[in-house]
């Protein structure tokens, strides 16, 4: 569906994308995971023919994004990271507008959006700008789908949306995937990453890893321990100073650590207690995708 071959893009002296190569299959739910400024939006803009890459080739549905942009624009639904519908037009008017602009009607493709639109239909006369965050995203998704595209590209669709709406939104994406639509999505939320078929971890314009979320986690290959104590800040400091500890990352209430050479240091609890830590708890845990990501980020930093 999407073949990106060694795509690079620079803005002045900043390298937004640095040799990105990846393949996305048909009706795949593909996630692009990375921190802010990693190059996700730039990549999406190249996929949606809005930006031209400096080097490399990008083909979408077998068409080159530079030469066949007109054809591709008819077949791609794009939902930019920022809410980009007309805030002063009503829900209904926005939907009709995008349907007409793509040379179709709402009626014709209603079956595609029915499940999503039913959530916002009660507010169809309301200006889009006055919808809540979650409803805005649902409307934007409807507008991106109304011309029945084969590919939809969603740039951080759930940023700034409450947890319930986020869960709903992902259910909708899963349903769309069953209709045969390919979905390329980016998210800063790690809990959403595992909902994708495959994810690419991206940082500073470079792909760190591409695989199924489960495989990526399994590939972590180290035992991970969660350490918690009363003074979390001091705990992090002390753990970082300990030579037997390899990585230390704060994670919610606790601190996730791995040991050098994956060898559990049984004296660690004693050392920490000596240093004055109270309520210490250390237990082995299953690493999550975020742990993997942080690990990969550190490795790629050290490579440089």
């Amino acid at each position, binding site marked *: 569906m999407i073949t990106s071959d060694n795509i690079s893009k620079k803005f002045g002296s900043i390298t937004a994308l640095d040799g990105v190569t990846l393949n996305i299959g048909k009706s795949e739910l593909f996630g692009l995971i990375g921190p802010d400024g990693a190059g996700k939006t730039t990549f999406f803009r190249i996929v*949606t023919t809005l930006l031209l890459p400096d080097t490399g080739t990008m083909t979408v549905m077998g068409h080159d994004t530079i030469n066949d942009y007109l054809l591709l624009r008819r077949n791609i639904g794009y939902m*930019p990271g920022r*809410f980009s519908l007309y805030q002063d037009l009503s829900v209904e008017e926005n939907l009709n507008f995008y349907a007409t*602009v793509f040379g179709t009607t709402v009626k014709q493709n209603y079956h595609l959006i029915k499940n999503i639109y039913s959530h916002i239909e009660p507010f169809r006369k309301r200006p889009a700008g006055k919808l809540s965050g979650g409803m805005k995203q649902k409307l934007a998704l409807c507008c991106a789908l109304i011309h029945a595209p084969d590919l939809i590209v969603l740039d951080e669709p759930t940023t700034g949306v409450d947890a319930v709406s986020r869960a709903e939104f992902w259910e909708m994406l899963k349903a769309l995937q069953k209709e045969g639509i390919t979905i390329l999505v980016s998210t800063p939320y790690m809990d959403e990453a595992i909902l994708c078929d495959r994810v690419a971890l991206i940082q500073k314009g470079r792909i760190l890893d591409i695989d199924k979320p489960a495989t990526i986690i399994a590939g972590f290959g180290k035992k991970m321990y969660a350490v918690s104590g009363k003074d979390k800040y001091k705990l992090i400091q002390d753990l970082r100073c300990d030579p037997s500890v390899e990585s230390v990352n704060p994670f919610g209430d606790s601190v996730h650590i791995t040991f050098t050479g994956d060898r559990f240091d049984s004296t660690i609890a004693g050392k920490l207690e000596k240093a004055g830590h109270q309520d210490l708890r250390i237990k082995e845990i299953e690493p999550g995708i975020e742990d993997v990501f942080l690990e990969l980020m550190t490795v790629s930093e050290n490579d440089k």
Partner: protein
Amino acid sequence: MRTILYLIRKEFIQIFRNTFLARAIFGIPIVQMVILVPAVTFEIRNIELCVVDKDMSTESRQLISRIQGSEFFLLKHTTFNEKEADDMLHSDKCDMVLHIPENFGRNVTREGNDKIMVAVNAINATSAQLAWAYMRGILQDYNAELMVQNLQTGTPARMSFIETTNRFWYNPSLNYKYYMLPGILVILVTAIGLLLAGLNVVREKEMGTIEQLNVTPIRKYQFITAKLIPFLIIGLIDLAFGLLIGKILFNIPFNGSIALLFLFAALYLVAVLGLALFLSTLSSTQQQYLFVVFFILMIFILMSGIFTPAESMPLWAQQFNIINPAAYFMRVIRMVMLKGSGFSDVLPDIRGIILIGIGTISLAIWRYRKTV
């Protein structure tokens, strides 16, 4: 075609849903007409005159009564004291001082000549010139009459002179409003064209809606046309509205063809809108756009000849006016409204404005990118 119509419909929905904008579109012409037209008019009637008549002869009274008989002068004060008269001029209590020296009457009848002095407050050069011109007219008339009288009294000299009478064509009463109102209408139409359309596009950029629009199959020409036509229509409606107000409030004459004026206005709006769309592609915020357009608007209007005739500007300014669309419209609207000029009279201007229009629209299409 269906896409363009729908895009245009969308623009109109947005414009009229914005209640402030909708009111402003119809409110501004009223305010401009009611306030600006009378305000920018140079009042050439009621020039306040102070006379220092040191002669008090038949001749001096004849001259003064002639001046009083003119509709342009208002005799504010008569005095013998020159200083008092000068003080009045200094303190802005009168606009003009006329000095008639002693023995004026005697010298005129016996010697055949004498001098009088006129002092005019020339802070406003235009009104001072006008006042002086009127005064000179009266004095010349009086001169001529004296000569005839002298002939009749049998002075042996042979007198021959050319009598000049003048008539101000196209605006016989020299009503300045007739001159200014078309100019105000040009400002109105230009402001609508430059500001509304350009800000509309820049706003789409600021709100991010242009990004979503860019991934749609909308073609450049469709986008440009859809941004152009709504403001073209609004501009023409405002022009009609302004003309109507001018007719009702100031009974402004309309000697030419209304259809010709609107044809030209439409061509003019296309040129201006093209420029607005071009400038909007260069700016990314409404602030930037407003700042640039403010200066362009001022240059266009002031150089177009709204106050001072473009023909009396320096050569480089006249050459600049070849690319100044406002100069064309300023000329044509006055020609059509006041002179009743026909199609063939304004044909060179029509050609000019079409060329400018082609230029600005091409620039807009060239610069508008459907990429980020």
